[in-house]
């Protein structure tokens, strides 16, 4: 049974009314005219104090009596074969409980330096470490490749002798792929559009009035979350398994463990009370999770296996690098006709190096041609990383767009404007951003500022997508004391979803957020979303609001019976229930709750498909960022002074945590643009900076002034209307910075990270 509702959709100053059809048991969606107490306001995290005082316990902090400490032995050579392993000496060490090989049967093929060989569980971390040194093995080494260029050479050593199937997680965009060929170390290309003919396309491109072609490079970035990957596994004597995991997908950990060990899903429980970041690399149990479970099963004791920082850099994910050849063809007036991208990238021994999201989804074009391939090298596997492929893609595309604008003599922002005319959100973003940033004050002629210290402005677009899954089940309870709980299995990756859930329930019931008990991060709490694809909020909030609404209806029914009225006569003001005919007769939330039969009201609601029977909703999440940088041309040092970020993400829930996501995305983007780089020793294949000292990450002094403009964009496609922001905010930052650097010094830096040595080399090249 459906009901009809009239809702106001669009941007706040340009709302339209539409009629939508929604299920009977759901509330009218929040829309552009809803006046709300908490939603869309700035609400502090409900667990902020626990986190800052150390009361919050992360997986890293979990300590159970009798718990063993486990560690991995890793290879220190990048390619070879292990034919025999001798674990006996390690096993005999006092305090060692179990030693297991990383792979059940031999030979073990080593494909990167840092690959796991065996794991030890011991009474203390120190004993485990000592035991590792007692493990010996027989092995041969073989030739290896460490870069895309080397890997695609004829007769290059092969990383795989077999065909590799793409492994995807909830963090990756599309997991469906048609037959991709693998030849040598190259897996691909994937061609888009599939039926496009390369030669015909090239003819078309060649005939464009103005053409720009250039090559862009990005580096490998490791996730470097504060809390490393890891678990504590308690394998019970009843074969029930409890796992504390630092994960962004509690259910994916449960499924992996249950599948691997052939257990019932119901016998595996995964808990993530607090977690220190994931950025896309923490889905599933991982080898560390499987090994910890094996060790726990073998020893009958709880086992803790947290990676150290080195293991973290080497083995559990990174953002693939890229080598992108990009062409743009336009008319003389600057209308884009053709876009072409040939992209190679390496996810080490993993896949997922595609970069074509931005080029396919930002600008209007007549024709497009994309070829993208994964190239295997002897380095640790890639994993989904905050907007997979998009920062790389945007770095190339948005610089190419800038270069084209420059070639055409059109203002880079104007060039973007005339090529995104169909997207009114973007059109608005350009205006808002330019005004706040002061785009008109930019240096009109790149590099023209006198003196060694040069300032420049740059701009770049981003694109992401509205993604959500279905079937999440939220529970809301109200007990006889009037205590309210919201319950779901979703983990808080750090974005603050728990706070948002409290706000939603408080909003619906007229209470305050800190009156709501939030129980999340536990697979026993009902199916919740994995935090991938920026879908956490979009995924779970409608279910929570719908559950709170159902609970409210139950309370209204109860109030009606107490007041001796029919439900339609009961009005709700804040959390008070009144007799619509005689407002003086009213009941507090507690008074009504006290009459709950039995112990509590417990209702659940499910995340369904978005509302049907209405015009198509907008499914891209757009954004534009402006960067203001200073370049010291004498030293090559780039300083980011200011970033203005304009993003839409549906209806904002908690504006404070939302801004935090944007701040974090930008800071990570700056770090990617200027500092981060996984460096492999070219002669041995060993990473030389597997720490946070020489793997450089932006710190407090590197953070500029950040200003955000969040566009409230109501689509009322479900009861909350939330979309995602975690990923979009990091996409355009590096490109905006690179464009600002060009504006400052008049030279293009087409390779990340933009470090002083590269700036100095580029300036020298230019002065020749």
């Amino acid at each position, binding site marked *: 049974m459906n009901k009809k509702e009239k809702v106001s959709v669009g941007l706040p100053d340009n709302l339209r009314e539409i009629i939508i059809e929604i299920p009977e048991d759901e509330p009218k969606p929040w829309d552009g005219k809803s006046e709300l107490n908490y939603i869309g306001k700035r609400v502090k995290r409900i667990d902020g104090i626990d986190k800052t005082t150390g009361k919050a316990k992360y997986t890293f902090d979990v300590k159970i009596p009798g718990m063993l400490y486990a560690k991995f032995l890793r290879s*220190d050579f990048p390619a070879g074969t292990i034919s025999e392993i001798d674990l006996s000496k390690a096993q005999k060490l006092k305090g060692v409980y179990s030693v297991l090989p990383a792979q059940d049967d031999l030979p073990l093929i080593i494909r990167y*330096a840092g690959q796991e060989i065996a794991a030890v569980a011991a009474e203390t971390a*120190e004993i485990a*470490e*000592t035991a590792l*040194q007692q493990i010996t093995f027989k092995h041969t080494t073989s030739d290896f490749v460490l870069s895309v260029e080397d890997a695609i050479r004829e007769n290059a050593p092969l990383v795989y002798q077999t065909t590799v199937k793409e492994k995807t997680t909830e963090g990756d965009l599309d997991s469906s792929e048609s037959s991709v060929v693998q030849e040598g170390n190259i897996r691909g290309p994937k061609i888009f559009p599939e039926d496009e003919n390369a030669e015909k396309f090239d003819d078309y491109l060649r005939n464009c009035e103005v053409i720009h072609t250039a090559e862009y490079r990005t580096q490998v970035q490791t996730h470097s979350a504060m809390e490393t990957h890891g678990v504590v596994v308690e394998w019970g004597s009843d074969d029930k398994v409890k796992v504390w995991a630092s994960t962004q997908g509690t259910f994916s950990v449960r499924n992996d463990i249950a599948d691997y060990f052939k257990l019932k899903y119901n016998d595996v429980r995964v808990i993530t009370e607090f977690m220190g970041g994931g950025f896309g690399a923490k889905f599933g149990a991982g080898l560390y999770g499987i090994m910890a479970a094996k060790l726990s099963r073998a020893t009958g004791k709880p086992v803790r296996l947290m990676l150290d920082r080195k293991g973290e850099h080497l083995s559990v994910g990174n953002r693939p690098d890229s080598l992108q050849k990009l062409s743009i063809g336009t008319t003389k007036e600057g209308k884009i006709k053709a876009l072409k991208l040939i992209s190679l990238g390496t996810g080490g021994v993993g896949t997922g190096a595609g970069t074509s999201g931005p080029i396919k989804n930002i600008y209007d074009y007549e024709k497009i041609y994309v070829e993208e391939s994964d190239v295997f090298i002897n380095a640790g596997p890639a994993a989904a990383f905050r907007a997979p492929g998009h920062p790389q893609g945007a770095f190339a595309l948005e610089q190419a767009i800038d270069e084209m604008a420059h070639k055409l003599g059109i203002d880079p922002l104007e060039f973007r404007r005339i090529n995104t005319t169909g997207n009114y959100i973007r059109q608005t973003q350009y205006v808002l951003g330019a005004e706040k940033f002061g785009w008109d004050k930019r240096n009109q002629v790149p590099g023209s500022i006198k*003196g*060694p210290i040069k300032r420049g402005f740059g701009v770049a677009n981003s694109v992401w997508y509205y993604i959500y899954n279905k079937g999440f089940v939220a529970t809301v309870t109200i007990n006889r004391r009037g205590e309210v709980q919201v319950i779901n299995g979703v983990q808080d990756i750090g974005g603050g979803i728990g706070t948002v859930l409290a706000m939603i329930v408080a909003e619906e019931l007229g209470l305050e957020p800190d009156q709501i008990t939030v129980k999340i991060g536990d697979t026993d709490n009902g199916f919740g979303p994995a935090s991938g694809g920026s879908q956490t909020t979009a995924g779970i909030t409608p279910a929570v609001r719908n559950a709170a609404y159902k609970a409210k209806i139950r309370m209204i029914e109860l109030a009606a019976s107490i007041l001796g009225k029919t439900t339609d006569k009961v009005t709700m003001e804040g959390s008070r229930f009144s007799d619509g005919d005689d407002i003086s007769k009213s009941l507090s939330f507690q008074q009504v709750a006290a009459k709950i039969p039995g112990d509590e009201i417990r209702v659940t609601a499910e995340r369904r498909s978005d509302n049907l029977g209405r015009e198509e909703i907008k499914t891209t999440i757009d954004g534009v960022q402006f960067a203001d940088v200073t370049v010291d041309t*004498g*030293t*090559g*040092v780039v*300083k980011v002074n200011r970033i203005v970020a304009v993003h839409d993400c549906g209806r904002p829930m908690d504006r404070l945590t939302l801004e935090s996501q944007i701040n974090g995305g930008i800071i990570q983007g700056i770090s990617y643009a*200027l*500092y981060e780089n996984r*460096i492999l*020793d*070219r*002669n*041995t294949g*060993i990473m*030389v*900076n597997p720490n946070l000292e*020489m793997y*450089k990450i*932006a*710190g*407090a*002094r*590197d953070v500029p002034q950040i200003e955000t403009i969040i566009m409230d964009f109501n689509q009322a496609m479900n009861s909350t209307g939330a979309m995602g922001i975690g990923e979009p905010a990091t996409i355009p930052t590096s490109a905006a910075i690179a464009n600002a650097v060009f504006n400052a010094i008049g030279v293009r830096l087409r390779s990340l990270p933009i*470090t*002083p*040595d590269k700036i*100095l*080399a580029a300036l*020298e090249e230019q002065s020749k």
Partner: protein
Amino acid sequence: MIKDFEYYLPKATEQALTLFSKNSAYKAGGIDLLDLLKENIVSYDSIINLSGIDSLDFIDTEIDLKIGAGVSIQKIADSQPIQKYCPALSESASEIATPHIRNIATLGGNLCQKPRCWYFRSKDFDCSRKGGKVCFAIDGENKYHSIYGNQDGCAFVNPSGMATVLTALNARLQILTKKEIKTINLRDFYYLPAEKLTCEHKLNDGEILLSVTVEKENLLRKNYYCKIKEKQSSDWPIAEICIIGGINSLGNFENVSIVLGSAAPIPWRMIKEEKKLEGLQATTKYIGNVVESSFSDANPLRDNAYKVKLFRTLLYRGLCSIAGLESER
């Protein structure tokens, strides 16, 4: 894993001296020592903690500037006399690492710390400085390595920012040995790889660095210090310079001393340039000439030639600053 060790916390230097036996190490703040222990680069039977010795923690400005080896880096950064008499030293101190580290780390530890070369610091590489056969940096990843003094089997850069400044200030070290208190010029303190490959300085086993003295005549002179880092938070320098000098009444350079940090395995003095500057009129043109002709003797590796350009800028800017001229570069 860190091997078990005896741990001592003496109250006086003499006591520390007698506690020192065959495979002992002194610990001051421990910032460097503990890192090395944790990475299994070193291991000791006993560790003698010097941080309980009050007599190492003083700053004295009565005649010369004398700083105890146990003074924390933050104290040096905050000291008003140091800010006044040799601002380059307090600037360099304030640029080191993070506030947390500066509060714990000491002057003595800063001068005596081991190389930060990533091959040296990794157990995975049996490099020449650890007694192995090769320097992996020479043909490897050498962006952060030396451009001078790198032809003798090791290419690390001296990591100490304060050594750069104190070398320019011609500081002297007071060292307690079993027999006496001896004095060594900081300019003679460090070994080049050609002299010794596995040892960086002349402190013999068991000797305690007591203090560092900058003589009166080198105080209150013109100071220039600049540290260039890739990122501004807690990063190591990619280039560092300290210039101490003067301009005489005729407007000529006089008694200038120039030292580069992150250029060589020791604080790298630019003696040739110092000589060229002596008596030279302090104009941007002459400074430019000196800078142009400098660094021809540098030996950059594959990935660190950029340092030469960078040092040129720093030298030019530094000399302009000493001369009170506006730098155009």
